[in-house]
């Protein structure tokens, strides 16, 4: 009897301890964590198929010295090439990557982009990108009709740029960070500030989970060589209450 009572007390203390630890873990996860390394391209000479799907319609994409290399080809107007994130992309709500343009012709840009939500029946497409022809990084969100026809920009923003002659940003490594929620879109460059757009309209989740890294030209531009590295993702987390329930049931 005494033994049973002691065991019960011990079990109770243990449960309290377990709940306290789990609470702290949940608190820590929600406060500090969230970003996880997705790929640093150090695993070999080919892309891991459980992480990436390749669209090479306008660029040759390879791994070189532990970086993803895009060689955007000339003569591909309005065509994009992509490394598309395919590992649980639905719950990705942020992407961070190093982006470096080694060479360029015309207006080719390197970017992180994807669908971030819907306003009514229209999709919101957003990106943060490096644009060497303008010597700067930029971000925007566009509204697309259900057939993906461009309607208008929701916003457009630039980071630091020079007047007159654009700055030479060749071989400058930008750390670009892009994060979105139903309330806002944030784009950050680690040494040039952060731009945050807060919606006025109600935004619902996107049906498409497409998110990618890639290159694009509008005119017959190219060639352009862009490197991506150290790709991190931020995933939506289950709520603390859900975590505790799951823990309690285990």
């Amino acid at each position, binding site marked *: 009897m005494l033994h049973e009572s002691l065991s019960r007390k011990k079990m109770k203390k243990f449960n309290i301890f377990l709940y306290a630890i789990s609470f702290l873990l949940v608190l820590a996860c929600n406060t500090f964590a969230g970003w996880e390394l997705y790929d640093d391209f150090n695993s070999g000479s080919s892309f891991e198929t459980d992480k990436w799907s390749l669209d090479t319609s306008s660029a040759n994409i390879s791994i070189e010295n532990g970086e993803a290399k895009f060689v955007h080809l000339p003569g591909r107007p309005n065509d994009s090439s992509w490394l598309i994130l395919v590992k649980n992309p639905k719950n990705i709500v942020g992407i961070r990557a190093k982006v470096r343009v080694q060479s360029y012709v015309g207006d080719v840009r390197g970017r992180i982009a994807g669908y971030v939500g819907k306003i009514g029946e229209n999709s919101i497409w957003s990106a943060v990108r490096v644009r060497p022809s303008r010597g700067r990084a930029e971000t925007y969100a566009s*509204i697309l009709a259900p057939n993906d026809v461009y309607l*208008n*920009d*929701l*916003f*457009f*923003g*630039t*980071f*630091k*740029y*020079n*007047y007159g002659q654009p700055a030479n940003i060749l071989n400058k490594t930008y750390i670009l960070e892009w994060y979105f929620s139903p309330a*806002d879109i944030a784009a950050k*460059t*680690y*040494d*040039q*500030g*952060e*731009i*945050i*757009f*807060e*919606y*006025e309209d109600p935004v619902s989740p996107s049906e498409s989970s497409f998110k990618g890294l890639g290159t694009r030209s509008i005119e017959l531009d190219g060639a352009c060589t862009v490197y991506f590295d150290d790709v991190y993702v931020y995933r939506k987390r289950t709520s603390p209450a859900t975590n505790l329930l799951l823990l309690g049931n285990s």
Partner: protein
Amino acid sequence: MLLGFSSYAAAGWELYDDFEQGTIDSQKWIKDESCGTISVENGKAKFAHASGHPNDSLYLIFSSNTSNISGIKATITVASCTGDVRTRIAGYSGMIDENYLWTGIQFEPLTRRIYNSIAVEGPPPTYEGLYQLHYSEYRNPIQIVGQTFESQILFSDDGVSFEANSLGKMTYKFSDEVSATDYFFRAIGTRSTEGQGPCVVYFDNVYVYVP
């Protein structure tokens, strides 16, 4: 940080002028009428920007406790406009080293755009334009002439937030170390680069944010 800005925006606004006394109050404003006239009409400040004044501004410059102002909010109506005249709330919001951050929200009927900007200018006396720290646009093209917009700027050493009603809120957060400005020029008004015009704009219900 967003929470910081939100709570920052929730309190501290004080009515600066609603122009109900019928004239421009010289205790509150310094008039710069170098390219037009400024008067009060039906309880609103009326800016009549004249053509033929390139790179010139028509201003009501805040003159009361300007060093305490860290936000400006106003109702803006562009009644009519020809050419490149733009309407704006603008001023110096901070400093990076010895350079000044010229910050504004602009309404430009010619391009049918509303845009925000933070330009870095060198020290006096020339305040030479050095580079653009930030530029952003809201959804466009948008009808500006004949519309009324609630608009505001809020600034701190963390960043600047810009807002135009129904179009969303843009915030630029600095990565540079930004200190408080020692030049407190803040104003509402109009400006033309090419000297085009004329343009008639009304400002009303001007609030300032005093921390």
